[in-house]
């Protein structure tokens, strides 16, 4: 599931900020994985947003939840929670949290981004191990993976030609990864309760062994101003899978 999530996150970036991400949005996906040549539904992935206020600021809380369908729970239960707290206008992250339960494996992680965006104070804990704290340097434009998913939706892809790409950097498992998003063209795909949507077909490339193949990790973002992720396909060392949007609300 960690690899699947990473692949999903790789499927996403930014450059020409236009659209604003709204609070109260919810996107529900059915995640399927290829088993013996057939796609089998294994989990529900939910992306949602909400506002969270402190005495001085308001943050946009970006949430990604992954839960296996109840029929899989007795075999391999997944309850993953990824969160990011960002500036609502710029999507600059202030804090990133990760709490995963995958079968018997658990891990929690918390990144506090410094105000200048150059360092991260990280706290992490794996199952049966002591809590680790460390501080590491990052590039000023480095994003956490949850923020990246939303950031890419602010890109105006109509200004790109097929074949052109956008480069950026994400931080995952305390390591920075350069990622490129290449526009491949447009396609119409099914988007759950939204019907069929014309989408930008984007190919994700990353210098990591977590993703496999060329143009095998893809995301379809609707061409309208909402830029809803309608479909994601990923190829990882242990197989291939996809996420299909089943329900979108509050958009």
């Amino acid at each position, binding site marked *: 599931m960690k690899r699947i999530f990473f692949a999903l996150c790789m499927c996403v970036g930014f450059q020409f900020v236009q659209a604003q991400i709204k609070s109260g949005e919810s996107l529900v996906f059915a995640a399927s994985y290829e088993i*013996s040549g057939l796609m*089998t539904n294994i989990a529900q992935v939910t992306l949602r947003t909400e506002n969270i206020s402190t005495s001085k600021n308001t*943050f946009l809380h970006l949430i990604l939840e992954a839960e296996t369908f109840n029929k899989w729970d007795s075999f391999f239960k997944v309850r993953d929670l990824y969160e990011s707290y960002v500036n609502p206008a710029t999507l600059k992250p202030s804090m990133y949290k990760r*709490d995963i339960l995958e079968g018997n494996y658990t891990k929690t992680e918390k990144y506090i981004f410094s105000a200048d965006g150059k360092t991260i104070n990280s706290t992490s804990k794996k199952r049966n191990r002591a809590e680790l704290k460390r501080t590491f340097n990052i590039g000023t434009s480095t994003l956490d993976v949850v923020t990246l998913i939303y950031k890419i939706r602010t890109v105006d892809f109509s200004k790109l030609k097929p074949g052109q790409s956008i480069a950026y950097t994400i931080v995952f498992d305390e390591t920075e990864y350069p990622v490129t998003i290449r526009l491949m063209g447009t396609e119409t795909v099914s988007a759950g309760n939204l019907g069929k949507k014309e989408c930008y077909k984007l190919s994700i490339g990353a210098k990591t062994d977590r993703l496999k193949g060329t143009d095998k990790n893809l995301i379809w973002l609707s061409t309208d101003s909402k830029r809803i992720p309608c479909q994601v396909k990923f190829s990882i060392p242990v197989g291939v899978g996809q996420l299909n949007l089943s329900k979108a609300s509050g958009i």
Partner: protein
Amino acid sequence: MRKLLIILSIIFTVIGVVFTILPMGNIALFPTSIAIVLSVFAVIFSKNNNKKLPKWILVLSTVTFLAVIGKDVFIKDQVAVDQQFIEKKEESKQDAQKELEGLDELQ
């Protein structure tokens, strides 16, 4: 040949039944379809033998096939209401709020 067909159809029927019980979705159609085809041939080859086993295997594999279709049509994929996970999300949010208040004070 008849014995081989019977043995293979039993094997594929058993695999089909196991896959149907496990949450393997439509994958269970593979072994059950093969089991049906093999058991049909086993029935044909056993015509003069008057044995009942191939017919029973055919019935079982067909029922398994229908069960897979039925599961796919009538049982929808759902996520369980997990109170522990709901509480974890709420706790995480409350912790984050405190942490963000702390960050506000530093700035």
